[in-house]
């Protein structure tokens, strides 16, 4: 029992850590601006370089404890502080960091700027595992940002695949405008007659049920083999017992009686037609339904001696 508890605790902790790590893996560097002269201002009314992280998952991610850096040789340049609710990033939302080298101004002001940065690197809490990185371009010009074409999509290895110069800056918001009806509209544009969706979806439906078929075919075969073994082992000992794969005559008799009564349309079924009801006769005990627990205690008389 002690070992079981220990095992469960270890499994539980492992799962917790794995889950946490996996969710931080979903964070993406999404956009950055190096030369800010006439763009977004911070809370102090100053215009500095900024970069954006995007939570590409569908769950909230806490980035407290992770690291940001502009130097591959020093990944721990800025540790995102804990104890700030703002570090919990909602699903598919963005968070903006100011690269002003003034970390005392708050959680979202990092300890480096982008003027000489080689790249921006986002690292896990262990300070070693890089989640995402992107080289910094210094030739973009004033107030021009570089970002992912579609939020959260593209490279995480610094190759810059899926990134491009943005038509307009979009700090703390989507790089690509998302129209509510965009997905269905895109689908209709790609597949105006519905055949692509039909074939894709039917393939998935068939695939799911074919896999289920194979699994239960295998389980069924194993079960029949086991039943035959049991049947062979008990052969000649008790004729009333049957293994799986054989149906006792009593079952057929009961089914035949039920079908007969049903077809005769007598009182074997309740008020609804087409329903044969076999009533349970057993009374399973449960303290929840026991009347004795709902009664008050019987008063007792203490006799004096």
């Amino acid at each position, binding site marked *: 029992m002690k070992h079981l508890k220990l095992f469960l605790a270890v499994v539980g902790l492992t799962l917790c850590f794995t889950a946490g790590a996996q969710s931080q893996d979903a964070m993406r560097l999404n956009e950055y601006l190096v030369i800010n002269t006439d763009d977004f201002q911070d809370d102090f009314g100053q215009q500095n370089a900024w970069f954006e992280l995007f939570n590409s998952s569908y769950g909230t991610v806490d980035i407290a404890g992770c690291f940001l850096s502009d130097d591959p040789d020093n990944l721990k340049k800025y540790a995102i502080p804990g104890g700030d609710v703002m570090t919990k990033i909602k699903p598919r939302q963005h968070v903006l960091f100011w690269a002003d080298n003034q970390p005392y101004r708050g959680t979202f002001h990092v300890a480096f700027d982008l003027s000489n940065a080689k790249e921006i690197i986002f690292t896990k809490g262990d300070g070693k595992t890089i989640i995402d990185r992107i080289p910094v371009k210094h030739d973009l010009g004033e107030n021009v940002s570089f970002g992912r074409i579609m939020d959260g999509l593209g490279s995480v290895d610094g190759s810059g695949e899926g990134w491009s110069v943005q038509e307009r800056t979009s700090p703390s918001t989507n790089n690509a405008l998302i129209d509510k009806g965009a997905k*269905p509209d895109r689908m209709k544009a790609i597949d105006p007659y519905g055949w692509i969706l039909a074939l*894709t979806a039917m393939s998935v439906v068939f695939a799911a049920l074919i896999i289920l078929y194979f699994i239960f075919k295998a389980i069924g075969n194993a079960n029949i083999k086991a039943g035959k073994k049991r049947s062979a082992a008990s052969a000649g000992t008790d004729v009333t017992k049957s293994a799986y794969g054989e149906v006792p005559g009593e079952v057929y008799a009961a089914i035949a009686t039920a079908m007969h009564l049903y077809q005769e349309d007598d009182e074997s079924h309740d008020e609804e037609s087409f329903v044969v009801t076999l009533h349970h006769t057993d009374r399973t005990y449960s303290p929840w339904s026991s009347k004795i627990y709902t009664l008050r205690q019987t008063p007792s008389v203490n006799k004096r001696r």
Partner: protein
Amino acid sequence: MEHIIENLKQFWQFTGFANFEIGYLIMIIIGCLFIFLAIKYEWEPMLLVPIGFGILIGNIPLFAGLNVGVYEEGSVLNILYQGVQRGFYPPLIFLGIGAMTDFSALIANPKLLLIGAAAQFGIFGAYAISLALGFDAAQAGAIGIIGGADGPTAIFLSSRLAPTLMGAIAVSAYSYMALVPVIQPPIMRLLTTKKERLIRMKPPRPVSPTEKKLFPIIGFLLTAFIVPSGIPLLGMLFFGNLLKESGVTKRLANTASGPLVDIVTILIGVTVGASTQASQFLRWESVKIFIIGACSFVIATFAGVLFVKFFNLFLKEGNKINPLIGNSGVSAVPDAARVSNNVGLEYDPKNYLLMHAMGPNVAGVIGSAVAAGMLLGFLG
């Protein structure tokens, strides 16, 4: 006296007679027709009576601002309607369906699963027709799900993809489910030969309790991993079935398959009916949805029966499947299976197909939930 007359005039303004429009009368007639069909012919009475009466409730002409209508925020009917609008009634119904469904026929003969998959062509056939008739892709997906012949799934998906069409889609789905005994038999007869209709299938083998317990767990994990967007429906369906088959949660299974599903059926039926207010329902789109709905049931039946005939080409003599159970791939449980059985009995009074037909029938429930998940993934 003048004061009394003034009050009476004001009272008149509040009555349904003063606010009457011809649309309400049409809807009231439709509601009465539903109730008549349910009572006289026993066509899906559990659904058509609540929906029919819901239509009456929703089509009493109202003085605006009384805060009693289903679309008036905060009204009692509106609060009950949230279960439809936010989609939490359908998963609860699936919980009940899972707790009352015996998957033995399917486990004993798992190849019947494929018939349940084939019949989902009805959904995508209807999707293609809807696109051709000018609906946008999200609306087409919601309308297409009528072909799954599964009311809760239709409500669930339409509440997400096309909330404005939900009333028409739900009423259409439930109406055609009630009409399964009318729609399917002619198609089944048309597509099969007399020899095929007389095929006798092997009795299904008994299924062990372990297999029954494993089915909901493996079934859920597999289907949910493939289509996570179907989790609300698939999760509750298989969870309900595990309650039934585990053998240790008898009371929970009884509640899920009895009182709970009854309560939710009442609420979903009445509120869906009430949502068909003439102003929302009597539109050209609703007529188109009804036409597409009929087509989807026809396509699903065609696909199911033809798939069995095709499948039989690869099966040995003695293992062949009676194509009359092909129609059961739609998930109208157990009506479609009953239709297979009844049509089969017409040609061979001793050939009971009910148990065999229940296999594709419950596979249809799984298939339509997976298909709904796909539509939600692509269009949601």
